[in-house]
Structures are given as C-alpha cells and as structure tokens.
C-alpha cells in the first residue's frame, strides 16, 4: 500500500540504452500492468523497481523514499518470477516461509502464517511436498504464497502466467485479481499478453522499444490508442492501419489511389499531410459491393471467435478485418463492400506515429489543440 514514483528512469547496458526515460506515478493500491512486446524494456523497468537492476538514470521512489541505492530486501517489494524461482530443495512450506525465516520470525508464528497463506491459496495438502512434485498451477500458487506471506507494500509480477496453459492462465488471472482486491497492495504486473492486461489492470502502460507509448485505463488504451504502435498492438484483431495521404479535398487517399472520406473538418485540417488511417474491425461494416461509397475488397477467410466473427478481407493486397454482427453468409473469394463509420476513425501522423484524430474527440484537431 505504497505509491510509487518513477521519474525519468533510464537503463543502459554499457552503451546500449534499453529504457529511455520513463515517467510514471503509481497510486497506492493501484494495479498497474506494463504491456509490450518482448525486448521492450518492461521487465527491466520492473526489475529496477525491485532492486535487481541498477538504475542508470532518474529516480524511483516507493512510499515517498527514493530507493535507487537500496537493496532489494530494504524496499518492501515482493516478486513473482516468470519461472516461479521456487527453491527446489525446500518443501512448499519452507519455500513460503523462507522470507520469514530470514527475518528471524519465530517458528510458531511462521507456521501459523504459512498455514494462513496456504489456506488462502488452497495449498494445504501440498505443504510437505517439494516443488518438483507439483503441477504448473500449484507451483505458480506457491510463488504467489511466497510473495504474499511478507505482506509487502508492493507486489511485482514478471510475466508470472506465461508458463501456464490457456485455461489455467485465465483461472489464475481471476485469482490474482481477487487477491489484489483482498490485500490491496500496489501491484505492477508485466506481460506481453493483452488479454491479461485488459482483465487485470486499473491502468495499462504500453511500452515499446524502451519508451512508454501510452498510459491509461484498459478502455482508454483500447478505444483511444494514442500512437500508431498502440493501435496496432492492442486489440484482437489489431486495428486496421492504412497508410496514405490527405488530398486537397480533405479525403484520405491511400497508396493505390482509392479514396476514403474523412469527417469534414478533420479532413480539411490535414490536407496535404501523410497520415495513417486506423479503423477497428467493429467500426467498419460489410455492405453490398455495389453500394454507394463502399470500398470493394475480397473476402479472404472468416475467423470464428465463438461469440463473434471477423472477416479478413483482402483490400488491394492489404489485409483488412471487419467484425460481423449478423449472420452474413460468406465464403472465401466473395467480393464484399466495406463501409467505415466516419465517427470512429483514427488518424495518426505517418511521420511521428502520434494520434492526430481520435473518435471521441472527432473534429478536434489534436495537432493544433
């Protein structure tokens, strides 16, 4: 239950910079998920908070105290590692209780607290076992227990679910959320899995190439991606991104010369600029290829997602995904017409990748705002 401030934190290995100046204020009790592709520096950032990596520049403060020079054990953080890092030669009970043993907690007190934690995680039957005799999910819970027992101010998770199978991952996700609600400790959770990020986070930090791309609630990040990278990274299917230019009439022309009308004033504002048009699959709909203003494409394949269906269309060689709401009958190779909802268009600067038009603010010219 401690706020964390990360101020212009940098990390480089020798001359290679891996984290370039991250700023972040995390509130007490907040559940933060750092999302990004592998190698984006998200784990490094987490490890700097933990004290496992030296901080090359900037400052990290936990609960108001700058911790740059503090050892991991002085920071009051607990961490769940990707491969669990359970001590193979100790029993489950000893694994969970190790931190207390190091801290010199009496044996009776220790076993009482181990019992509590084991009960909360339904690990009671396994307390006498060694980690190698446990299943993946059980090991994961032991790792959680080891972090919980210290009642830390801050919980750090380094891709803790990535070694589990899909079903277990979803179950553990719920469990982590439930534990967080009960314990209320500030949590930072690193993952490359956007579903995990969406379901767990109070706020998501999207990172790419050592930089923070966007900080926001899951809804924010999904609905209003602030950069082209976030637009392409978050959401299944990913946002359709077409690179082109805005002509003098304020219409979007992409490279094959086809034209998409933009919302009136926005179009005018960006006339002559190179932009990227972003459209979520659900912001487009299928119409007859002959319909007026429809963009004509070829249906490539249909992805059945259970609750919904997505048509992947071939748009002059570019893939374009459209969500199907009704039970349209389609087969690969069919010609389809696509209509894009002008109020749900995103525009990104082709040069910087920054959002210059987002739907909620349609009509507002961000670049000039």
């Amino acid at each position, binding site marked *: 239950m401690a706020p964390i401030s990360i101020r212009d934190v940098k990390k480089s290995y020798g001359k290679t910079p891996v984290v370039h100046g991250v700023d972040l204020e995390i509130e007490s009790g907040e559940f933060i998920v750092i999302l990004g592709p592998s190698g984006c520096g998200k784990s490094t950032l987490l490890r700097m908070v933990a004290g*496992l990596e030296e901080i090359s520049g900037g400052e990290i403060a936990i609960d108001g105290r700058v911790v740059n020079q503090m050892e991991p*054990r002085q920071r009051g953080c*607990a961490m769940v590692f*990707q491969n669990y890092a359970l*001590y193979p*030669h100790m029993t489950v009970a000893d694994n969970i209780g190790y*931190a207390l043993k*190091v801290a010199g907690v009496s044996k009776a007190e220790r076993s009482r607290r181990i019992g509590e934690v084991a009960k909360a995680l339904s690990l009671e039957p396994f307390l006498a076992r060694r980690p*190698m005799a446990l299943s993946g999910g059980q090991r994961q819970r032991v790792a959680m227990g080891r972090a919980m027992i210290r009642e830390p101010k801050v919980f750090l998770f380094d891709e803790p679910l990535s070694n589990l199978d899909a079903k277990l991952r979803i179950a553990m996700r719920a469990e982590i959320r439930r534990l967080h609600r009960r314990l209320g400790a500030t949590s930072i959770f690193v993952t490359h899995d956007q579903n995990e990020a969406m379901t767990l986070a109070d706020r998501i930090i999207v990172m790419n190439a050592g930089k923070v791309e966007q900080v926001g609630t899951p809804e924010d990040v999904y609905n209003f991606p602030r950069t082209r990278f976030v637009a392409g990274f978050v959401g299944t299917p990913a946002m359709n991104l077409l690179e082109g230019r805005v002509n003098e009439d304020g219409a979007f022309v992409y490279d094959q010369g086809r034209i998409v009308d933009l919302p009136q004033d926005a179009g005018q504002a960006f006339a002559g600029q190179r932009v990227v048009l972003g459209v979520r699959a659900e912001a487009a709909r299928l119409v007859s290829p002959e319909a007026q203003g429809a963009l004509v494409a070829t249906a490539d394949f249909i992805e059945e997602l259970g609750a919904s269906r997505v048509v992947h269309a071939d748009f002059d060689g570019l893939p374009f995904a459209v969500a199907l709401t009704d039970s349209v009958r389609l087969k690969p190779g069919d010609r389809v017409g696509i209509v894009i909802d002008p109020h749900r268009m995103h525009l990104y600067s082709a040069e910087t990748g920054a959002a210059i038009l987002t739907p909620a603010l349609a009509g507002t010219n961000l670049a000039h705002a």
Partner: protein
Amino acid sequence: MEKRVTFSSTITGLLFVVPMLLLIFVFFYWPSAQALYWAFTLEQPWGGGNRWVGFDNFSQLLSDPVYWGAIGRSMMFGLSSTAIAMGLALILALLTDRELRGHKIYRSVFIWPYAIAAPALGLAFRFILAPEAGLLSIINQVWPGLWNPALDGKDAMIAVIVAFSWKYIGYNFIFFLSALQGIPRSLTEAAAMDGSGPMRRILDIQLPLVTPTLFFLLVINITESFQDSFGIVDIMTQGGPARATELMVYKIYFDGFKGLDYSGAAAQSIILMLLVIILTIFQFRFIERRVHYK
C-alpha cells in the same frame, strides 16, 4: 533415453563399434581377466606355468602389515587431499560466482593447475618444498631440521598431499563453478527479495544446490587420488622415506615391476579394482538418488 528413429542394418552398426570393442577386449577385459587368474595362482620358480593357490595371495597380502600400511596411507592421502582440494575449490568457486571485479581472471587462473602433469608439479613442489633450497628452506634457517621431507615421513606425506591438492583445486573448481552457474539466476534473486544477504544465500541456496556435485567430486577425487598420485609420489619421494609415502598404486608398481612379484601385484590390483568399483557403485546407487532435485 531412447531414439525414436533408428537404423536397422546390424552389420553397419557392428562395423562402427567393432574397433572400440576390439580395443577394450585386448586392453581391458583380457588383462583384467588375466589379473584375476594371476591373483589366484602362483608362478613356479623354475617355469612350468602357474599353480592354483586359491585365496593364498590375498590372505598373504591381508596378513601383511606393510600392505595394510599402504592402504592406510592411501586413505589418509586420499581423504586429506580431497578435503583440502574440495574445500578450497568450493570457497573459490563460490566467491568467483559472485562476479566481482576481475572474476574472469579468477575463472581462468584457478583452472590452470589442472593442466599440469602430476610428475611435473611433483618436481616443481619437490623444489619448492625442498629442505635445503626453494621456498620452505627458510623454515629450516629459523628452526634447523624442522622440515625435511627427505628424512621425515610425516613431512614427505604433507609434501605429496600439498602437491596433489594443488592440482585438484583446479579440477574441483571447474566443476563447482559450473554447478553454481547452473543455478538459475532467478533463485538467487528470489532469495535476495526474500531478504537474505550473500552469505545467507550461500548457506541456504547455493550449498544445498551443489550437493550433487559435491558428492560426485568426492568419489572422483578419492578415485583420482589412487591413480594420479603415482607421478607425484614417484618424482617427489619414490614412496619414501621408509615407505612413508608408499600408496597403493605405487606399491603395485613397485612389487610388480621392480620386485617382479606378478601374483602379489595382481592380487593388489584386484583389491584396488574392487575398491574403486565399490566407490563408483556407491556413487551411482546411493548418492545420485539421494541428492537430486531436478
């Protein structure tokens, strides 16, 4: 472990393994069988082949205090040099594993001793530990006659133990360091997050996790102390003074090749072979099963 895909042409398969089989037949199995034969027979003084004597050679050996002396010394030599070499190697490996400044230098230099031939380091240590020249001669200047491996059996034993341990620090260091580096980094980090400092981690995490290597090395060191000691002993002391450093292999060599008592040497060989086999089985059966976590 078995392969899913295999070849079935028996002849090709046999051809690949025949050279090895021939070699081990001629140089391993036949001689070992012959040793067994000799151990139970006695060569006739004026030719006429060997006479079956049953366990006579063995009972003669085992009732010979000189032989027991060699066994005792071998044990003494093996255990103390193993303790020194493993203890020092473990400490050095643990500290090198901390990757303090210069750890690449330590990692390299601590291996060097193992590259040196036992007799070569025997000669080097013979000089270094010589009573009248070299390094330890200073002791004799201060306390005349205190140190003399050429005359004092105890000093001679210390000298060969020091030389042998020095070489095997390098060997043990290689294995300990590789075992330590095999411990996942995240375990150390987890322990650090759990609040334990470097010393505590050594005791709670690293030492328990290298116990398999520890036991493995224990057996290897003792076996090696039987065989690799020969060159050191032969160059440094030749078993002397007054048999004070006559170890088992040296005695076999001496009785068999200098004394030409093949039957006695064969019986000694059999006993030594049994000893080594027992140690090896002990390692495979008992130790391997007890201390493996993976």
